[in-house]
Structures are given as structure tokens and as C-alpha cells.
């Protein structure tokens, strides 16, 4: 089945889902470019990897299901892969960034849990 034989309402839904996914990805990348520090920026691109990917995968599944060229479950592979791997990679990356910031005493990062941190009181004479 060619692209001209797709019903109009299916084409409209496919286009709407594609544009919704694209706009969410764009919002994630705008946040990536505009936020101030790394720990804020690490949140932004997950808009694209969660709902941007979900919407575009749904559009692709709908199109190939209607046009009937192949079974439309292959996209679920991409969806599952992206949804599973993104938290793993960003968690590793955030831990690496935290390690680097602690090693260089850079920025306002918290100290490791479980170590005795001696905090000097600023005004010990106050009651």
C-alpha cells in the first residue's frame, strides 16, 4: 500500500504524533542548552528519550500497521531499549560528574554519605 492509499484520518494522527514527539524532543534540547549547571541539565533531555520516543514510536507503529508492510511490533524494541538504557546511562554520568566535582572540590556538591564531616560552627559563642 502506498502513502496515497492511507486514510486521511490515519495520516492526520501519524503527523500529530510525530510533531508532538518532535516538539518534546526540542523542548528537552532547549533545556539542555539553557539550564545553568550540570545537575539541572541532566534532567532535560529525558523529555526526548521518554515521551518524544514514545510518540514517534506510536506514529511509526500506526503507519506501518495501516500500510501493512510489516508487523508493527518492531518499534517496541526501540522503545524498550531506549526507556531501559537512558536511566542507566544518565545515572552513571551523574555519578561520574559528582565524583569529579568532589575530587576537584568544585561547586556546591554534598559530601559522601557515611564519612565523618567535621563542620565548624560559625558562631560558637551564641546561646
Amino acid at each position, binding site marked *: 500500500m502506498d*502513502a496515497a492509499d*492511507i486514510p*486521511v484520518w490515519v495520516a492526520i494522527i501519524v503527523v500529530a504524533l510525530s510533531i508532538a514527539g518532535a516538539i518534546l524532543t526540542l523542548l528537552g*534540547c532547549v533545556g*539542555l542548552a539553557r539550564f545553568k549547571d*550540570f545537575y539541572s541539565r*541532566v534532567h532535560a533531555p529525558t523529555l526526548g528519550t521518554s515521551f518524544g520516543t514514545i510518540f*514517534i514510536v506510536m506514529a511509526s507503529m500506526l503507519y506501518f500497521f495501516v500500510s501493512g508492510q510489516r508487523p508493527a511490533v518492531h518499534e517496541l524494541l526501540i522503545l524498550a531499549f531506549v526507556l531501559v538504557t537512558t536511566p542507566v546511562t544518565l545515572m552513571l*554520568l551523574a555519578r*561520574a560528574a559528582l565524583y569529579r566535582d568532589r575530587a576537584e572540590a568544585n561547586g556546591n556538591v554534598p559530601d559522601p554519605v557515611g564519612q565523618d564531616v567535621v563542620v565548624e560552627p560559625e558562631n560558637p559563642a551564641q546561646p
Partner: protein
Amino acid sequence: MSEIILHWGLTAAQMIIALAMAFAAYRIVIGPRAQDRVLALDAFYVAAMLMLMLFGIRVGSAIYFEVALIIGILGFVGTVALAKFLMRGEVIE
């Protein structure tokens, strides 16, 4: 009719994804530190994968789906390797 809708709508979606890739590339260029660049590279990979899926819908071919899957896997492996490198200074110990 539906061909026109699909053509222009998917072109618009690809333009938006291209703009998103431009923002990610901007963050890769200005940094300021290595972890920012790795994060932006990950976002760039995901945007490229979505762009290839849209291209596959537009062409109506299943080959682009496999290309998108390979890009997703390579993006995962690359980001994990770079994060490991930032953490330990070596990838394989």
C-alpha cells in the same frame, strides 16, 4: 490528500528535530565541562535516532528502523564508555 498531509507534516517534524539537534550541538561546542559534552552527545544521538524513524515513515521503508536501532545501541554503549572514562580515567580496567 493523505500523501500531502504526510509529506508536509513529517517535513515539519524533521525540521523540529533538526532544531533540537542544533541545540544539542551548541551544548557540545560550548561545554563547559566534559560531562556536559557527553550528556549533549547522548541527547544528540537520541534526536538522530528519532529523525531516522521519521525518515523511515516518510519513505515507507523498514530499513531505517534497523538503522535507528543500531544508533540507539551505539549511543548507549558510547555514553556508558564515556561516563566510565570520566569516572575512572580508563574504559577497560
